[in-house]
């Protein structure tokens, strides 16, 4: 039964899909390096645009009719980048015990990252389980898929207080539900969706003749899954996992604000927002923190992709 995998193997050696399949590995590294450089250049360009617009843009912003389409260039609306970075090095408040702002934001970022990771794991597990169920039973697909799609139309602000309320009533033995679990649950609620849909598409992606071949060998569903469907789904799964990671981060930040959990980036964003008028660099710090969390989360999925690279034939956007 090794035919399929051995056929697939030479195709998957390249790091970046079909086009690169026969190139030696080093060019993959070089490609990645070049990608990183381009990413950095994009960042520099963004910073440049910010400062250029701030210097040369109209003081009152670009207004079309009564609608402001580009912001004012004042120091309040658009602080200089160096104001933001200088502020990060200063303490959060004037209190003697106050941490430097970067340390407080980093601690908040780690807290949010941890919650998002739990939410992501739960979401991915549930998403995969649902996808398998729907792949196995056509009836399950017709029954569950509409609800999965419907679930994402429920606004987060409606479910957040409910989740916290229900969670508060859960207690058995030593275990009691804590607020961060509510946030993780909300993050998983957002994260499971792309995984279930992406995995379902991935599991259904093998060619009919491959599936028929399995039938000819009278291979059971589990073995077909392991040998054919799962490897074939990787290309669909990885973008879904990345989407799930980003959704989990966004979900965590929003849910933290929504239910008022202390310790994470969401709370810091709201708490520091009040300083926008008199300490304009401060509210930007947690925003950078949330970007950092998103990058780390996406990077983690990239790492998974590295592990699974032999199965990545081509990535399909989710």
């Amino acid at each position: 039964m090794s035919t399929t995998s051995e056929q697939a193997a030479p195709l998957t050696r390249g790091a970046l899909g079909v086009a690169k399949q026969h190139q030696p590995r080093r060019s993959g590294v070089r490609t990645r390096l070049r990608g990183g450089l381009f990413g950095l250049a994009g960042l520099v360009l963004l910073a440049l645009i910010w400062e250029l617009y701030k210097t040369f843009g109209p003081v009152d912003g670009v207004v079309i009719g009564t609608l402001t389409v580009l912001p004012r260039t004042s120091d309040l609306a658009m602080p200089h980048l160096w104001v933001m970075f200088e502020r990060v090095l200063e303490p959060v408040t004037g209190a003697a015990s106050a941490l430097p702002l970067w340390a407080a934001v980093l601690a908040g970022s780690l807290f949010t990252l941890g919650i998002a990771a739990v939410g992501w794991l739960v979401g991915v597990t549930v998403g995969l389980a649902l996808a398998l169920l729907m792949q196995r039973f056509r009836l399950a697909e017709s029954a569950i898929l509409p609800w999965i799609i419907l679930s994402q139309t429920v606004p987060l602000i409606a479910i957040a207080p409910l989740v916290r309320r229900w969670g508060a009533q859960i207690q058995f033995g030593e275990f009691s539900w804590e607020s961060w679990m509510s946030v993780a649950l909300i993050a998983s609620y957002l994260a499971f969706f792309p995984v279930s849909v992406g995995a379902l598409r991935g599991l259904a992606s093998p060619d009919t003749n491959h599936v028929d071949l399995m039938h000819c060998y009278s291979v059971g569903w589990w073995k077909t899954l392991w040998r054919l469907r799962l490897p074939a789904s990787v290309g669909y799964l990885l973008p879904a996992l990345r989407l799930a990671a980003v959704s989990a981060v966004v979900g965590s930040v929003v849910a933290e604000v929504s239910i008022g959990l202390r310790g994470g980036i969401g709370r810091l964003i709201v708490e520091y927002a009040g300083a926008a008028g008199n300490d304009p660099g401060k509210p930007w710090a947690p925003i950078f923190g949330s970007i950092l969390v998103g990058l780390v989360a996406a990077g983690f999925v990239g790492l998974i992709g590295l592990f699974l690279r032999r199965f990545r034939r081509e990535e399909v956007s989710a």
Partner: protein
Amino acid sequence: MKQRIKWFGTLGSLAAVGALVLSGCSSDGNAPTSSDASGALTPMTLQLQWFAQAQFAGYYAAVDQGYYEDEGLDVTIDEGGADIVPQDVLAAGDADYAISWVPKVLGSIEQGANITNVAQIFERSATTQISLKDKNIRTASDLVGKNVGSWGYGNEWELFAGMQKSGVELGDINLIQQAFDMTGFLAGDIDAAQAMTYNEYAQVLETVNPDTGELFQPDELNVIDWNEEGTAMLQDSIWANADKLQSDADYADNTVKFIKASIKGWIYAANNPAEAAGIVTAAGSTLGESHQLWMTNEVSKLIFPSSNGVGMIDESAWSNTVDIAMNTKNETGATIITTEPPVTAYTNEYVTKALDELKAEGVDVLGTDWKPTEVTLNEGGN
């Protein structure tokens, strides 16, 4: 076979990474808000309407100073959040007491929440509309033709009532949705901005006035105070579950104890603003030091000096609030409530007992001689 081993290896490393991430999350930021409970203490939960900040200094001080413990209560303070409605949490039975504004709760009561105002902690309203002196906006009638900011979501009623009282229609002003910072006001988009005396007003005073190069001074601002305009509504009060007050004698007793200890906490905060501000900061607030102190001092002004003892619900102030709630229309023509609230909506029964006990202990519950401190705000509230 080789293939299979690779798969397992991949899964194994994924699980290991996942476990690492999980272990990093095991410590959560929710420090217990109460000291270790001995078996005799009754656990109680108080639901706030926002994050920890000096607006709730009295409750945090009562926990810190052991006033609740003295009464046999082990009080946990639950912070609010953007989508946490304290009266809903209370009505659902997930908290024993809640802090909320009367007009916001009146709407919930009309929709079926059976809860009772058992102590009106803030006697005065802290809501104002502030404007720069040169805009010349001194009373509600001066708002005509101006850009007027409001946060909405139930924070707008005193403004609307004040305008209605002065004969200013909603169409006469340009109502602007105000964000939770004062940049709109500072940028000049909003002429008269909504501001709580203990928070946003201070945010402006912590900002450098570009014209003078120094911090904004109170004499550079005009303030419309709804207490003076006669359309103030009752704000922070302690709400209890009305059903449980009837059916559960222990809960009714504990309500007296809870109010008593809370009032002691507020007296402590008023007399020791610096310590109280420190307690709130230690409880997790990240507000700047001078801003926190300002807030402590300003909320104390809403309580002291007290007309009838801290927490007593003044009948005329209550009916004024109800009156505004029934007769003030918002931009969609709706009012907060359409009928008189039930008699269970407030009671002085428990606060009277609490005040009697405090008086018997020789506690000054009026604070007639209390004087606010002078707080110097620093730039950025630091």
